[in-house]
């Protein structure tokens, strides 16, 4: 039972984690990316189509990431160059992405809601099936896909990237004081655009993982608010890599446990709301603490 929850939980954590890393970096550069959800959905859509067309999970994944990256970059341009409001533009992009995908699905495939394509290549499993024998972690390891490994590696090097590389320093400085960044001859808008493109890239990966990890079918409700869960995770982790990853894992496990808790009589809809509630509570606690410290 625990093994199964753990295995399912890790699979469910990956997309949240990927998107949350993108959102975290984006917010460090001063942009609250509320459009992770829409870009994940685009990523999933592209991944399924490309995977069916090429038969390669790798090409599909990269295509998903690149398309979402370009969308993220365009999204950033409306904010940095045209002065669009990042919140309304983000919500608008979510609506636009859903609309565009629905439109394409009915025009090209004549289907509404669900897209089943033949011969969709799924993500491979990294370890041979025999690892399932490992106690406790067995089913989890057996299910492990390359994108999950990538996400874990990325979160492991992220603190270093942010702290010790030039780009990391520029990103943090941009979010903290954009005029300062400009005054030393760097281009803060460019940092914001790059970080938003990066968030798009990772959201695309997240979408690809969501679509290609097990089912290979695209559905309009596939992301089911996971982009917002990712948002919740980096708010919960206060933009710090490790804490954010921990929050993602927690939300992923919660998601996996949801189905099982139902059998005990806990309503799944309410459990699904727990991450959002937790963020609210965490925000309240953080604010209470910082206000008390200020006094």
């Amino acid at each position, binding site marked *: 039972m625990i093994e199964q929850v753990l295995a399912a939980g890790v699979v469910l954590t990956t997309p949240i984690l990927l998107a949350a890393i993108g959102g975290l970096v984006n917010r460090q550069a001063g942009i609250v990316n509320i459009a992770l959800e829409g870009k994940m959905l685009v990523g999933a859509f592209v991944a399924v189509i490309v995977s069916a067309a090429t038969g390669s999970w790798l090409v599909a994944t990269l295509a998903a990431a690149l398309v979402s990256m370009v969308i993220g970059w365009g999204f950033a341009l409306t904010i940095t160059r045209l002065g669009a409001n990042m919140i309304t533009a983000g919500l608008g992009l979510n609506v636009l992405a859903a609309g565009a995908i629905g439109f394409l699905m009915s025009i090209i495939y004549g289907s509404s809601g669900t897209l089943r394509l033949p011969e969709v290549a799924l993500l491979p499993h990294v370890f041979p099936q025999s690892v399932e024998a490992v106690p406790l972690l067995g089913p989890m390891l057996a299910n492990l896909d390359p994108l999950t490994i990538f996400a874990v590696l990325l979160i492991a090097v992220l603190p270093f*990237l942010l702290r*010790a*590389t*030039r*780009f990391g*320093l*520029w990103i*943090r*400085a941009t979010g*903290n*004081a954009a*005029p*300062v*960044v*400009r*005054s*030393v*001859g*760097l*281009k803060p808008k460019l940092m914001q655009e790059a970080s938003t493109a990066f968030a798009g890239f990772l959201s695309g990966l997240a979408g690809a993982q969501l679509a290609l990890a097990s089912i290979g079918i695209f559905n309009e409700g596939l992301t089911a608010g996971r982009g917002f869960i990712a948002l919740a995770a980096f708010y919960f982790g206060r933009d710090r890599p490790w804490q954010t990853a921990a929050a993602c894992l927690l939300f992923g496990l919660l998601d996996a446990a949801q189905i099982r808790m139902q059998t005990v009589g806990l309503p799944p809809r309410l459990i699904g709301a727990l991450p959002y509630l937790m963020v609210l509570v965490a925000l309240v606690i953080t604010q209470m603490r910082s206000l008390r410290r*200020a*006094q």
Partner: protein
Amino acid sequence: MTTIALSAANIWKSYGSVQANRGISLSVAPGEIHAIVGENGAGKSTLMRVLQGIERPDSGHVTVMDREVAFSGPGDALAHGIGMVHQEFMLAPDLSLLENLVLGDEPVSFGRGAFARIDWQAAEAQGRELAQRIGIEVDWHRRAGAAPVHIQQFVEIIRLLRRGTKILILDEPTAVLAPQQVTELFDLLRRIREDGTAVLFISHKIREVTALADRVTVIRQGEVAFAAAVSETDGEEIASHIVDGHNPVTDNVKRGTPGSIVLNVTGLSAASVEKSHPLHDISLTVHAGEIVGLAGVAGNGQVELMEALFGLRAATGKVELKGTDLSGLDADRRRAAGIGFISADRRHEGLAIEASIEENTIAGAHRAAPISNGLWLSLRARKAVALERLKRLSVKYGTLRDPVGSLSGGNQQRVVFAREIAGPPQLLLVSQPTRGVDLNGIAAIHSILRDFRDAGGAVLLVSEELDELQVLSDRIVVLAQGRIVGELGADADRRDIGRLMVMEGAGV
């Protein structure tokens, strides 16, 4: 060896209908400190923005090391060796001082390009060496926002020198410093001068100019009004050029006749904003018909005291107005009890700059008769009240619906006064009443304050201009590091006031 590090020739720049610079020329040589003085709004800031590449001039040339340049932005200016220290320090508050030092030009230990690894050890070594060279000590791992003000300023200067700055521009660098720190800054600038760096020093404090600079240029109404070597002129001559060739405003100094106690403060303490001092055990009184001046270097608790008295800031201790205890009441209730408040920050606190003149004039009276009947507003009464108030202080404006931001600084301040003395209040808390106001406006505002006092009002006045304090006040109280360190008559020797202003750790 070039003889001119930076020169500007015939710079013109306008914003809409306002001609901010009208053919300004000036130059600075390597190893020279050149002071640029002028009133607020004379065009100094515009010129600096042009020199720094933030603004393009409408016409005119800028040359650096004898070569003509056209900057595309501050980064470009920096690459040509021009660096500026702003009034609001340009450090990212949440980064460490070291991170701020290297930002934009990081020493790299591995790799190239954006993802190169920063060599933090080399960075720190460079920082330490530079700090040593100009004779200061810096805790490089401190969060910039938490470092003392003058250290932040020094780090900014070091950062520019590290980037190869040959021409250093400082915009009123002493405004936020205590006198001791000013001395330190001047020593530092002199050492930089010896290295051959050219320094442009913007100020409106004549004494600082004569103490530090080699040459001085006075800017008035967008033109060069006067330029000379400091050794060949004196403070009086510079001052006369700043104010249009005439002597500084000679107010007809007339003192008030204090009556009974209006404001009685005992044991007031309050927390501070960043870069400033908390209030500690303040006790003072202001009488009817009296202006009490509050002297002090900026950031020694003046803002906190005024806010605490008006109920904008939580404080302990007792505040009484005509014997009524106001402690713990918020601004709304204190206003109702008879206190008016003239904010030091007119654009961000004194006025809602995008709102109409009418709304700004009647704000605060909008909830009571005759404007409101408790349920809705009478637009006619609102207009009548606004017109009457504006007329009393002869504010010049287009229509009541114009945004208040469209008025000149002096008229904006008159709108604030029109609102705040309408009550009329028993006590007026006034901060920097003439900041950014032209000379005519200053005289008018001074007479508004005097009239208010002569009608029996009590005034507590904060100003950074000692002149202003001395011509207006009946008594001067000195604030240093959040404490009251002394009280003098209005015509006391300014050296005595100055000595109190720099008292360290008084009463500890």
